[in-house]
């Protein structure tokens, strides 16, 4: 067995143990679960809603929802699959509800621009960030989720299928469609 899969197995064991301890009333175990997953969930949420302030709130909100449901979690899927599902659904509901607001905010803040020596470069980078934000937000919800889980979180199709409760074929079709649309939306930036 490779080191990577050994580590993965060990992590899964640790997570299962933490879930078990929480279910037996050890509240502190949940803090450890949050610490293990907070970075990944924040990154996922940020890419889904494309807005820093909202992402900061929603990432915490995902853990609040998970906290209230964890006692009923039947461990048919892994904890991470289950948590990702909560976060994705939260983001999809949020962007559906607040789509108009998200677009207004995009104009003002969205992704930060790394300060460089060249203001022109900064401006170009800002335009590029905004174009990517718009292109991703324009994707239909499920295609967006599939694209982000695959491209940014680098999850295998099979894992994404479990998170979104779809077949692997559906996920592949959605990913293909998402890339096709992004390619069209970003055509103006291509060399």
């Amino acid at each position, binding site marked *: 067995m490779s080191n990577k899969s050994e580590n993965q197995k060990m992590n899964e064991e640790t997570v299962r143990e933490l879930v078990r301890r929480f279910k037996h009333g050890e509240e502190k175990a949940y*803090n450890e679960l*949050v*610490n293990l997953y*907070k970075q990944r969930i*924040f990154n996922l949420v*940020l890419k889904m809603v494309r807005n*820093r302030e909202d992402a*900061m709130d929603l*990432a*915490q*909100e995902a*853990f*609040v929802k998970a*906290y*209230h449901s964890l006692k009923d979690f039947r461990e048919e899927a892994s904890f991470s699959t289950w948590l990702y599902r909560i976060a994705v659904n939260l983001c999809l509901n949020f962007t559906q509800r607040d789509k108009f607001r998200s677009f207004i905010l995009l104009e003002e803040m969205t*992704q*930060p*621009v*790394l300060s460089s020596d060249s203001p022109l470069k900064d401006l170009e*980078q800002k335009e*590029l*960030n905004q174009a*990517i934000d718009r292109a991703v937000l324009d994707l*239909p919800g*499920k295609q967006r989720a599939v694209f982000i889980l695959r*491209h940014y979180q680098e999850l295998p*199709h099979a894992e994404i*299928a479990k998170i979104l409760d*779809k*077949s*692997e*074929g*559906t996920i*592949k*079709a*959605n*990913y*293909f*469609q998402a*890339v096709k*649309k*992004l*390619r069209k939306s*970003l055509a103006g*930036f*291509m*060399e």
Partner: protein
Amino acid sequence: MRCKNIQIKLVDYHENSLSPEERNLIQSHLEVCSSCQKELQKIISAFKILSKESSYEPDEAYWINFVPGVRSKSEKSRSSTLVPIPKLKIAGGIVSLALVLLFGIFLFKADQRVMFKSSEEPYSYLLPTEGEKIDQLFYAETGDESLVSKLFSETDRDKLALAEIELEKYNWDKGGKEEALEELDLKQLENLKKDLEKTKIQ
């Protein structure tokens, strides 16, 4: 393999997530097909653009306060979920009313769908409302997502996306094909597509 079938797999090819056999098949095709080579170049460019996106990391204070924030929000929402009984009654009434309305809308919408004149199965779940051009609705061909989303549910659109792939006799891989077959009645969808094509010709 036809170009369309190759192009569906170019993203996976670019990500190096194909089986060696499929990879070789696509590689051989790319060596002789300039159109697919161009497609691949466009995909590579799109991913190159996406990789230029700035990243963002919240400051340390956010991470330090993350767990306490989750704990305090959890406590707050736990206390706010303890709804007094009269409020529950009102909420129950609203939910019942919403359910009745939803059921009404469902009946109304179901009524608007056209039953397809097929020799085998009624395909009403995949068909447009009356008066729309059928050839605008098979999104595999039109790409008009907004129109399609108005007329098809998300589940139906998934089926159509899969149908597009499967009807071209395209095999993702053995596992993927088996999974798709669990969700789809391919014979039924093949018949549907044939019927749609006939309708277009008329």
